[in-house]
């Protein structure tokens, strides 16, 4: 007959195992699927790496300039136009549904079984005078934004991969 102590040990072990599995699943989901970002806009973050990512997609999708990692009225109007065209609820907030929609527009530059270096995904919109593009990098540790010259403005540097998940605008560092 198992003692009370045995039952407690078994129960505790089960809880710990469940927590570990949940943490691993969450980590895999956040790094691979790019859908667990915090909301951006009046409903969430108004500065930092996630704002850079959202503005980067909006620059390609609506012509928003500049990408500076600081949420403003122009960013909100661009979000509403993006949401309306894509059938989303129009609230000006880059929420989960909007993030998922943006993620679906990304296309790998390299063949999917090859690990590209540098920017490896792109959102591209055809435009009357050519195209508008936004680049991203799916590094091992995090997603990053790669903003083109002419679109980026300080504190966002162009042609650098900026971490998407940081509160501040920071160049990606997987070692850290």
């Amino acid at each position, binding site marked *: 007959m198992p003692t009370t102590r045995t039952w407690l040990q078994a129960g505790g072990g089960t809880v710990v195992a469940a927590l570990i599995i949940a943490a691993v699943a969450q980590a895999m989901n956040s790094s691979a699927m790019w*859908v667990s970002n915090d909301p951006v806009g009046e409903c969430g973050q108004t500065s930092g790496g996630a704002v850079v990512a959202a503005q980067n997609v909006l620059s390609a999708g609506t*012509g928003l300039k500049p990408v500076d990692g600081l949420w403003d009225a122009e960013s909100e*109007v661009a979000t*509403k136009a993006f949401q*309306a065209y894509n059938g989303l609820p129009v609230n000006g907030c880059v929420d989960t*549904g909007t993030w998922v*929609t943006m993620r679906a527009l990304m296309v790998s530059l390299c063949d999917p*079984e*090859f690990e590209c270096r540098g920017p490896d995904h792109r959102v591209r919109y055809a*435009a009357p005078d050519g195209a508008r593009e936004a680049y991203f990098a799916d590094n091992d540790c995090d997603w990053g934004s790669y903003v083109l010259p002419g679109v980026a403005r300080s504190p966002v540097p162009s042609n650098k991969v900026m971490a998407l998940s940081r509160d501040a605008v920071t160049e990606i560092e997987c070692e850290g």
Partner: protein
Amino acid sequence: MVTTIDEPRIRPEWLLGGAVTLLGAIIIIVVTLVLGAREDAPVITPVDATELTVGTCAEDLRQPHWVPKTITRAVVECPADISAGIGRTTAEDHLGTWISYPLDGPENEETFRGGPGLAWPEEEVRAGAYHPLSAITYVAYPGSAELSDELSGDNVTVETEDLAGSGGTVRVTRVDNNGFGPVRLEWSDDAGSYLLLSTIGRTPTGNAGPTMAELLRIADSVAADDE
């Protein structure tokens, strides 16, 4: 006897009438010429969509043989162009080749006038009046049999569809926002892996972009006439 012969006189009203007639004729000719020059060139839909990429790096690429009639041109991006655009950070032989097919028609035209801002009326923004040009993007990754990671999310559906003509199957990923949103078709064969991407857009007058049936037919046509 003195005979007076009246010299023929040009009466002023005749002069005025002639001038008005001449001016009218000139106006009619000029207007006709101007309007004629502004008429769109006849739309020539290629018999085979591969004709749209003749003379480019995609000429010998496995690519769609059929596109909707509203597509009359294609924009090709070669791996060398893409590599240059990202600072040559990766090997060109692993980069895909992109073909972009812009769709014609007023509902598919870009409607941005200046950048987004308070000059865009709120009601028009909410109605979908400010939207990009609709296009279908096709990317071919020769030599690769893998598909990209499967997407997930509350508004994402992933299904496998059979292609009636070629006998293949495609993975269809839709971000289904009340019938609108991005659509991705991905598949592979013994020559490589492929992606078709477009957006079914919401506009004040209806839909922009292609239909699901058209996207499936495009994918099906890639394998057409393969020898």
